[in-house]
């Protein structure tokens, strides 16, 4: 669309105008976001304790401490955190995505009162994570909560104690997180489905395709851009997870529900190991970098097409 392209300035002389607009916000961004990011890299190669005036350069020792703790007989907090982040990520890019897409497709079938369903399922997304965390902490409470008394009354004699069970706890937290996530994904797919031409589907149906085939070969491929965004959002959100774990379990019992962000917080603020905390943050950054670069690449290609 030629109309929408920015006006090309004809003078070849240096024009300071755009820089004057950009400079203020950019300075704040550099000082408060970009600078700190690099400062974390610096901290990660020091042994700083957060109190003493100077920090000693110790090379990659912090990273060796972290990765050296993997695979020991007694699972290290770092291993718990890494594995839990991975469980979170894999769950997030599959189950909520599939459910959000499924709901969007069902609600796209001219359902009467679809607004009620959409709002109901989207509602948790509006609540803050501490609110979600407290509600679900109550839901899981063995005595006063929602689930276990129900299970007991259904005849299950010994229901699990969700948040104090080392095996189950992370899944319990992920479920609460997914509860918040599904509505968001559903809404993104609902918007995406508006752009799918209904006539294409009808044509396919006339040609004898069943509902699944029509979805598989027409709807889903047309939704590919939405799916990319949804997966990126899910990955980023799962790597950022902190609030729910902190509210619901503080990473316990015995680190079994910790995630990298929680571990970092404990290392830096409870154990005064700023260097080690920064190194943990850098590991997390490196994992997300893979996805950030992939996504940026896609956006950049779009930009070039303008």
């Amino acid at each position, binding site marked *: 669309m030629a109309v*929408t392209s920015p006006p090309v300035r004809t003078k070849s002389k240096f024009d300071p105008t755009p820089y004057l607009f950009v400079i203020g916000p950019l300075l704040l961004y550099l000082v408060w976001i970009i600078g*700190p*990011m690099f400062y974390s890299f610096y901290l990660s190669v020091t042994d700083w304790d957060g109190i003493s005036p100077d920090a000693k350069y110790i090379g990659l020792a912090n990273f060796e401490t972290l990765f050296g703790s993997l695979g020991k007989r007694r699972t290290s907090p770092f291993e718990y955190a890494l594995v839990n982040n991975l469980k979170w990520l894999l769950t997030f890019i599959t189950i909520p995505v599939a459910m959000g897409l499924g709901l969007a497709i069902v609600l796209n079938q001219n359902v009467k009162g679809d607004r009620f369903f959409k709002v109901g399922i989207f509602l948790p997304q509006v609540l803050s994570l501490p609110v979600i965390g407290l509600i679900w902490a109550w839901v899981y409470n063995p005595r006063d909560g929602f689930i276990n008394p129900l299970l007991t009354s259904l005849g299950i004699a010994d229901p699990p104690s969700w948040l104090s069970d080392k095996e189950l706890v992370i899944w319990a937290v992920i479920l609460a997180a997914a509860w918040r996530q599904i509505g968001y994904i559903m809404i993104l797919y609902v918007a995406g489905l508006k752009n799918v031409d209904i006539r294409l589907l009808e044509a396919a149906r006339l040609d004898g395709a069943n509902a699944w085939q029509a979805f598989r070969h027409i709807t889903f491929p047309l939704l590919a851009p939405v799916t990319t965004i949804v997966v990126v959002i899910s990955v980023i959100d799962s790597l*950022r997870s902190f609030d729910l774990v902190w509210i619901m379990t503080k990473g316990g019992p015995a680190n079994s529900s910790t995630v990298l962000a929680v571990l970092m917080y404990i290392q830096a603020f409870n154990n005064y190991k700023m260097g080690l905390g920064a190194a943990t*943050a850098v590991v997390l950054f490196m994992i997300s970098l893979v996805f950030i670069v992939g996504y940026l690449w896609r956006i950049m290609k779009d930009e070039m097409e303008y």
Partner: protein
Amino acid sequence: MTTQSTIIEEPKAKPFPMTRMLLYVFLIGFTLIYMSPFFGAIITSLRTQDDITINGFWSIPTVVTYENYPRAWIQGRVNRYLLNSFIITIPALIGTIFLSSLSAFALARYKFPGNQLIYFTYVAGTMLPFQILILPVFLLSNSVGLYNTYWSLIITHVAFQMGFCTFVLRNFMKTLPGEIMDAARIDGASEWGIYWKIVMPLTVPGIAAVATLEFTWIFNDYLWALMLIQDDSIKPVTAGLSTLQGQFITNWPMIVAGALLAALPTLVVFFALQRYFIGGLTLGSGK
């Protein structure tokens, strides 16, 4: 029932009513189960801990009371925390929108060296795991004397939200027709005048969408509040809730009532401005 009528009829105007019925049963059942933790929380907030301890949640309440709400409001200090949340959120929101609109305008309407680089820096920033910023931002706000003040949170929110906001507004402004601006330029409008009097008014729908969303995000932040605020008297409600949780450890009706009160402002904003809220979400992911 001639062949003619079947031709006029659309291929699948009315699906089999039975499947429709099942669809509705499924949807109603699913949505109710989905919302049950939320409804359960509301019910719990209207009971007493004694009643729940003795009879469990799945019992007919012996007492129904709204008392937990005023108690959470005053003794749980939700009133103060909510006020703090607004004191932080409103300036942060205005700052984010204003600064982002400045960069968005320049990035959308001018060709200049560095344009793409700046744009991608902002886009990449939206995906940054904030964990990498926690320690340095904590140290930075400490060293400039802002730690444990409203300003530390306000500045951090503005800086952190600017990426997403700039991204959305820039793409919105790019869709505005260039002729209007060229015409204004010929009429002798200054570049600032073009930004403030022409582009900004046209960007209002985009700003409304992104502001609704940003309000919720900033209001709902917990992590930065935890990192940058220590005094209970200036904590926003998200951080205040953990104080409340510690204060009323096993009093679930109180805790849940506090949580629901804390959620009220974002719920109101969502229900009042639903269209913008959803619009903001899809604008941000439309690219």
